[in-house]
């Protein structure tokens, strides 16, 4: 289990992470989302024990992380740009990780080497971006961590490899309760991969929830009323996040219980009534809009 309590991290005057508390249970795949510069990478690096927070505590399995090598032995952090030693090959890097991580599994390394068909003697600097990413995942999983932290891991991978890596992560989660924390802007991928998500903006956590609960909590309603005046009393009864009108069809984004929302609309026997769950991308955009961060409709 990973526990952050009231974590704040400054860079000089700038507050990159602002009073964030977070609990990630064992065996969870947690997706960290957020606007550019929201503080995702800072939060991940604090979690991995790379940064020391100005205040608050970070604990993994009840142990402090920063400057605690015995805790870090169970954590693998993959930065957004994979780092390898200059001139090194996969074989060199494997030797290094083998000496650092007591949990290193030769068996897993060999199994994964079959999956990732990479030349292990070749210099990693000559690999493409996607191949370097594959090498990082091969090495990371061979360390058999309890916690795997990945910053933007999906970038540069082809669809076959994405599926392969998803499958590998799912196996590790199902088999030995690996905890995975992933940051990404690719919301489609996050939606398929994660069971919990947190959305950050300006160093704060806006919302943090079970992904299905999050999706079950916000709905998109498309409706055409028999009388235009019917829409007025609805706003008072429901928690409307957003509304717009396209011709005679109204679009509402409503928070709350599905049945209750449906009942509220059905009273007026509308001509058209469609209640849809939101996609993660839509939730992200509306939540960000709520926080005052939205795309401006500008015609150039």
């Amino acid at each position, binding site marked *: 289990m990973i526990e952050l309590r009231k974590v704040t991290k400054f860079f000089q005057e700038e507050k990159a992470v602002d009073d964030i508390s977070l609990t990630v249970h064992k*065996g*969870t795949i947690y997706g960290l989302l957020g606007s550019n510069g929201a503080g995702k990478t800072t939060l991940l690096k604090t979690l991995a024990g790379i940064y020391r927070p100005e205040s608050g505590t970070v604990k993994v399995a009840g142990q402090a992380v920063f400057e605690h090598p015995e805790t870090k032995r169970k954590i693998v952090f993959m930065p957004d740009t994979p780092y390898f030693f200059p001139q090194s090959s996969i074989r060199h890097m494997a030797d290094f990780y083998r000496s650092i991580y007591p949990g290193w599994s030769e068996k897993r390394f060999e199994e994964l080497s079959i999956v990732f068909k990479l030349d292990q003697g070749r210099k990693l600097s000559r690999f493409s971006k996607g191949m370097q990413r594959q090498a990082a995942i091969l090495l990371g999983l061979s360390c058999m961590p309890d916690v795997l932290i990945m910053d933007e891991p999906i970038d540069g991978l082809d669809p076959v490899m994405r599926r392969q890596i998803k499958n590998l992560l*799912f*196996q590790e989660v*199902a088999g030995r309760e690996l905890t995975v924390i992933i940051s990404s802007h690719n919301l489609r991928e996050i939606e*398929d991969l994660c*069971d919990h998500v947190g959305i950050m903006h300006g160093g704060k956590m806006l919302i943090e929830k079970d992904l*299905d609960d999050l999706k079950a909590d916000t709905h998109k309603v498309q409706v055409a009323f028999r009388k235009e005046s019917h829409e007025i009393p609805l706003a008072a009864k429901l928690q409307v996040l957003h509304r717009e009108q396209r011709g005679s069809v109204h679009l509402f984004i409503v928070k709350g219980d599905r049945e209750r929302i449906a009942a509220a609309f059905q009273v007026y026997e509308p001509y058209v009534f469609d209640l*849809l769950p939101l*996609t993660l991308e839509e939730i992200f955009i509306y939540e960000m809009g709520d926080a005052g961060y939205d795309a401006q409709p500008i015609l150039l």
Partner: protein
Amino acid sequence: MFELDVRSRKPIYEQLMGKVKELILHGILQADEQLPSVRSLSSQLTVNPNTIQKAYRELERDGYIYSLQGKGSFVAPVRQEQNENQKAQLRGELLRLMAEAVYLGFTVAEVSALYHEAEEQREKGMGND
């Protein structure tokens, strides 16, 4: 056995629950038959194991399946009360569809023919097993 639509807005665990229910109702999955393990299903479908766990948990709560510690999940025999609950739910849905059918000009004979078709399909499903 399970085909999921990842593009659908419907949550994956609800889709999974729907599929398992369908297979049970059509007699393709029979009472006390073992369901695939969370791990193998996760690998087959490339779906988060926690999501599959959740679907199984909900199905168990609804009385469709039961689980044995360390052995896996199995199809529960249909219980009478559970049947009644489902029937009440389905009645509402059928009524709504029926209203639409009436509006479109379906005759009683046509609706009854559909009933028999469904009955035949179910018998065939049982026979194949």
